[in-house]
């Protein structure tokens, strides 16, 4: 039982780091800073719900979709790692941001807050990876929802945090998250390669 619980917490933490609310909340808060307090709340609730919807859809249907296109688990893991790596590089070196933040004069809908900021390619890959593990779908689902709840709390506190921590503190936090993400990304690629070589024998 405790092994299951530990598994849930590990996965929730991993997905939480991939969702990167600490790094994103500054960007998100800046994006909606122009709207009134109430409007900001409406936008955040809507975007977070869409994000959960995407996560759950990917969790339940993603596996079948990937089975249909004939992609092995090794390929999924390596893809997740590589995309995640590109993403974490943009956290570490924010000058050349990968996430496009243009055309933001209108109210943000789905893009860029729900996806790719909250649920990006890396988190979809991670969720697909979770749902791929045999006999573990219920703990994985719990982990996904748990990670989303944690993310939602932090994203929701975003505008408030931005005032408290200040821009510098946010930037420092983003670098640290970037480092952790890079490590996880390389680990994912290695895991995928291991799967690939194990499959060869």
């Amino acid at each position, binding site marked *: 039982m405790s092994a299951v619980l530990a598994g849930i917490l590990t996965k929730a933490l991993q997905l939480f780091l991939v969702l990167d609310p600490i790094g994103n909340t500054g960007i998100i808060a800046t994006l909606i800073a122009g709207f009134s307090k109430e409007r900001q709340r409406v936008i955040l609730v809507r975007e977070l719900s869409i994000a959960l919807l995407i996560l759950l859809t990917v969790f339940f249907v993603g596996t079948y979709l990937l089975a249909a296109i004939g*992609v092995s688990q*090794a*390929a999924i893991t390596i893809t997740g790692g590589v995309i995640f790596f590109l993403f974490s590089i943009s956290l570490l070196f924010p000058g050349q941001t990968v996430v*496009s933040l*243009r055309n933001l004069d209108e109210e943000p809908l789905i*893009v860029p807050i729900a996806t790719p900021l909250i649920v990006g*390619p890396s988190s979809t890959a991670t969720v697909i990876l979770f749902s791929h593990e045999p006999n573990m779908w219920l703990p994985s689902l719990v982990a996904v929802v748990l990670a989303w709840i944690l993310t939602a709390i932090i994203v929701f506190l975003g505008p408030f945090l931005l005032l408290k921590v200040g821009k510098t503190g946010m930037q420092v936090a983003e670098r640290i998250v970037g480092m952790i993400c890079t490590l996880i990304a390389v680990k994912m690629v290695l895991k995928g390669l291991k799967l690939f070589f194990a499959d*060869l024998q």
Partner: protein
Amino acid sequence: MSLFTTTLSMFLIMNSVGHIMAYLGLVDQLDERRRQRIIIREMFFALLIMLLFYFVGGLLLDALEVSPQTMSLAGGLILFLIAIRMIFPRSKQPEEQQLFLPSEKPEPFIFPIATPMIAGPSILTTIMLYTHQEHIGYRVIAAILIAWAFSITILFFAQEIRNFVGRRALIAVERLMGLLLTMMAVEMLLNGLRSIIIGGIA
């Protein structure tokens, strides 16, 4: 590779969903009937170009004596780069803006809808790769035709789709398609590696 996989990857590379906005931008001054005629005409040009490459490409690669392993590795790499651009469309933007100068907008004829939007370099390379990889030729033709049929349907109803789901949802769909394509590309790379590890370098 199954017919489904080949068709899906071709459909994803044609990227009709991703082209909806650019296409509508090109024809926004024309009336409904004119648009429909244009998209059907352009799509048939695109099909013609793709089929031409199907025949010529196979001959070319045979003449170069490219091994299936090379094909698998090169194809995987090319697909991977195409897919990454769909997910992180940063470098694509200025090129497209360059393509469509807003000042003079003549009615599109072959360029830029038929090529390079639909039958662009990426789909043509992919057709060559698949033709060389698959020994059953009709499968590639079938894949091209099915993927093309879906693409023409999507572009024919471009205005309706855009009005229904909105611009942002289209971008989101393109990103998801890019993710799928990346996975297929990595799988292709791994297949190439596998055959090298097992069978040695041919």
